[in-house]
């Protein structure tokens, strides 16, 4: 495989950490017309234990121009659905659960401060570490503290994107030796 193929494979891993989380959090149904038997997720699977924090890699992802636009949009401060800080509360939780020292340190000041933050933090942690257990009640918990449907989409997208970007960083570091 040449450098382009390796870079793309790393991007695919990252992208599918986004897409699977949006699929799991939104509760969409399997809808491809495949002749293969449907995959049955093991919903009782235990997440792999995370290594101690002092062993986490300190890595920074390199984004393509398209990826950067996606990132800038989801972390833009002008959306009304979720505040900028609420986005960073979600991203911090996702970075911590993804063992991403660099991003978690960057976002350290955005630890949860109030009850709404704590609901967002719990949502992002579950979606990051055991997405296969997501349920309708996880979205309802966000509605119950006042978030509208578009905010729910943004909450899962920000969380999923941070999961993707933390893995992109690790993958690129591994690929470059």
């Amino acid at each position, binding site marked *: 495989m*040449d450098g382009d193929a390796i870079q793309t494979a790393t991007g*695919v891993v990252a992208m*599918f950490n*986004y897409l699977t989380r949006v699929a799991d959090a939104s509760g969409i149904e399997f809808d491809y017309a495949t002749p293969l038997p449907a995959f049955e997720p093991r919903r009782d699977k235990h997440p792999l234990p995370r290594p101690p924090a002092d062993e986490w890699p300190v890595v920074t992802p390199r984004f393509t121009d398209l990826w950067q636009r996606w990132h800038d949009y989801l972390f833009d401060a002008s959306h009304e659905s979720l505040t900028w800080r609420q986005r960073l509360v979600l991203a911090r939780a996702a970075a911590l659960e993804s063992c991403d020292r660099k991003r978690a340190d960057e976002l350290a000041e955005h630890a949860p401060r109030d009850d709404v933050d704590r609901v967002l933090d719990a949502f992002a942690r579950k979606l990051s570490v055991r997405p*296969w257990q997501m349920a309708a009640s996880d979205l309802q918990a966000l509605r119950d503290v006042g978030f509208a449907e578009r905010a729910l989409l943004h909450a899962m997208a920000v969380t999923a994107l941070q999961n993707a970007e933390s893995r992109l960083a690790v993958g690129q570091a591994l690929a470059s030796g």
Partner: protein
Amino acid sequence: MAWLATISRRDAGGDLAQAYAEMAARPTPEVYVPDHGDAPGIIRAHSLDPALMRLAFSVSGSLHRSTLEWADRELVSSVTSRANECFY
């Protein structure tokens, strides 16, 4: 029915209808075209924000323009989904 509110292609207007048309115009293998006639669920999940839909799927689309072969990309995405215990 998804847990998140979504807008079907049939009910879409304005910018969302345009975004759905752009998604449908992308080259898509037959196996990834659902037989319910609506946009695929993963795209419909983004229907409350057409700008986000365009951005997310522009990145996923860009991963198809590479020397990485189709079968290898499918293998990598399948393993990633399985590690996440996800049908998608």
